[in-house]
């Protein structure tokens, strides 16, 4: 992954939702997936704008398909998208190493 383009938090969420929805990764489904898992309300416009950005960075690619009889713009993770996710997670875990937030909160 290029150093100058780390994944933003929302970008990471969208990318993960694309992976989780698999064969049914289209805009509305991605939105629903994030909402259901995170419990936060997400605007459809933000999802589409992020998907466009991710496509421009070549982390996803889009194509037209008919997953349920209606033609839709579908998204799929690319190889560099997968690499970006892995790098993002590794970076986060490196950062978390040795950090005990619970202690700071007074629970541990």
């Amino acid at each position: 992954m290029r150093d100058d383009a780390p994944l933003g938090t929302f970008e990471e969420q969208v990318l993960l939702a694309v992976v989780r929805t698999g064969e049914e990764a289209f805009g509305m489904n991605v939105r629903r997936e994030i909402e259901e898992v995170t419990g936060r309300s997400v605007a459809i416009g933000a999802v589409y704008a992020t998907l466009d950005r991710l496509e421009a960075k070549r982390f996803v690619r889009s194509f037209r398909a008919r997953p349920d009889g209606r033609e839709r713009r579908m998204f799929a993770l690319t190889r560099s998208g997968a690499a970006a996710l892995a790098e993002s997670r590794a970076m986060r875990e490196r950062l978390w190493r040795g950090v005990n937030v619970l202690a700071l909160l007074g629970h541990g």
Partner: protein
Amino acid sequence: MRPRPDRLPPLARALLGAALHGAEREEVLNDMAEEFAGRAQRAGPLAARLWLWRQVANSLPSMVTRGWFRGTTGFESEAHRMKGGALALESWIMDARFALRSLRARPLYLALAVLTLGLGIGGTTAVYGIARAVLLNPLPYAASHELVAFWNTYDWSEAEMAYLRPEWPGFSGVAAYRPEDVFLRREGSPPRMVPGIAASAELFDMLGVRPRLGRGFEPGADAVGAEPTAVLSHALWQELGGDPGIVGTVVQLDGDPRKVTGVMPPGFWFPDPSVRVWLSQPMRPDNRSGNYALVGRQAPGATEGAMTDALRRLTTRLREQFTYPSQWDKTRNAQLTPLRDYLLGPVRPALLATLAGMGVILLIACANVAALMLGQLRGRASELALRVALGAGGRRLAQQLLVEAVLLGLFAGVVGAVAAKLGFALLVSALPLGALSHAVTADWTLFGSALLIALAAAILVATAPVLSLWRGDLRAALSHARSGGMDAHGGRLENALVVGEVSLALLLATGAAVLIRSVEKLHAVETGIRAEGVAVVDVSASGEVARAQRWPQVEALLQSLRPLPGVSHVAATQRLPLRGGGDNWGIAVEGKPELPSSTTAVRLVTREYFALLGIPLRSGRLFDETDRPGSEPAVVIDEVLARKYFPGEDPVGRRISYGLAEGWARIVGVVGGVAHEGLKEEPGPGRYLLIEQSGYVPPSLSLLLRVEGGDAAGILRQAQETIRASSSTIAVQEATTFERLVALAMGPTRRVMQLMTLIGALALVLGAVGVYGVVSHFVNRRRREWVIKMALGMRPRDALQQVVGRGVVLVGAGCVIGLVASVALTRFFASLLYGVSAADPLALAAASATLLVAGCLAALVPAVRASRANPAAVLREVE
């Protein structure tokens, strides 16, 4: 389940639909409808709506920005591309980029078009900004359409006001006011005069304006013996420190204590924006000297008939109480003027004439650029042919032309906005706005209107080429593109543009010519005065100075000015010639009791006054050292008075009423007549009294200095400094030269003339450029034809004649149309003309001749080039 996007609330659907494009719109709307329906079932319609609107509100910004940039970022997905229906905006953006590239390839055309349009836009914007501020902005009074000014301005007395005020039939309020400048002295700055208004107590209630702080005048504030009060303008309040606690305090104005009762809001002005303070003025029933103007508010709903009745009752009451000499009988000419016309009327013709002139310049500039574009279109015939062959439709080409024009317009708009900002202050000072110029400032709306005007101009510019495209000219041009340009017709639209342009230019040129002739006539008016080299300093003595002390002070002041370099004479008077009427006193002649009562101008002067202004002595003597306080009162009359009251007699030695005191004064001399009031009025009779002898020193005086060698302007600063240094109780009001006063007396005419001459010259240049461009294109189109004809024996002179002839025909046609139009239109600024008819033949002839010559010269250049063309080169040329 079949999704039903129409289940979405219509507004939400419309908003989302507008932000999305092509296939995506359908997809997202369907999905949203599905989710919406599901939520409505699960959680109820209210929760579903709440969800939907949060989605819309949070989605719109990102959707809109994304849609906007899609076309240019190149980020659009392949999937989106494959399914047609791409952004409608995309083709426009492509056209804009194409137009930018193609404009960059033609820098000369770009510069010419942008500068031409920018000039027109800048001028129009600036004048429009001023006209809007002065003429269109609402007056700063409540329901100002109800406000009217009374007739006989500055001719109403306190006695009349006091008598009439208990009852004003037809009015809900009437106030009296007169100018009353006050002497303001502050720590650390030289004393100066502040423009003020003395008014009756009704003023602010009648205008319907509440002060920003405190109150206006209380009823009874103008009763005799009431405490003197003052209301400050916002600007003066700021200048005095902007302390809100000033209300209720006592300030020293003109040496008198006055209680400040209020501060007006920032935008308020009355009767003009230079006024800084309003003073309550006792209305004494016994004061019959008349120098007030009356302004009133008509009762709401008063009809014209009701007002006529009301005025009749008013004049009847006046007649019952007062007697008027027949020539001053104000009961006979009763008439009300809407306040708006009264305050703004004098500046309107000048402003509108300038605005119209600038608008015409803009039109000419548009025609020029349109002709340029047409020429470019023909020059690009091969390129366009190629693109049509590749499938570009006429609509697409028209769109491209429009985009190019709009781009040109935008550039020109920016140039114009900058020009307008730079030229604004210059224009404000060049226009005869008087005190109203204080209310005019350049603000950011200037930029907005420049862009709007530019957009309108761009669309206007695009009309001609688009029209030509639709009429099929282009197709014809395309089919001829390879035929050697031997088409005989074509360019008719261009010709029409040039004829229009020339006629507009002629319109402006005649306007300028008529004004120049007016100013010429005004210059020729005999003022009776040698104005060159005379400096004028208006001073006012503070009210604290006792009357008896005034003369020694003034005399000391005059003596202190005498040593200034180059000064040969110094003098003082209470009212200079050409500064409008006023100070007319009644006259009686000893031994002629049968003379009807009448008045003459009275001027209080010092001994050197006549020599200084170059007023010639006709007979008798001027004031000399024998005229002193206590000696027999002496008076000098002018020849107009002599002719009127002493026809066929020698007035020297006769006696007339003195005016300042009971008794007679002896006429010691007769001097030349002088234009007491203004240039446009016939010189009236006048008489002169010696200030020193009369013992009466008016509080405001004009000091005069004659500078040998003539540089009066150069000494003004020194004179002001000398006055400031020698006295702290005398303030300089204005310092100027007499020549400037003469220019001022010419009124708006001179200034409008200068502006119009400039505009006319601009129109001439633009018109000539237009003629040049069109004739060049004409020449280019016909070059091959001529070359072949010349090879067959046509003389170069014939080609030259044909081209110039073409130019002359165009200019001639334009001149004829322009002449008709100017005869019809110039009369609209007849009020600016003096001694010239709007259809002055000399002016019309001069303007058309100038334009014809300029047009012929413009046509000659390409003609000469055509006649010298090398035939072989032209025939070998590949278009």
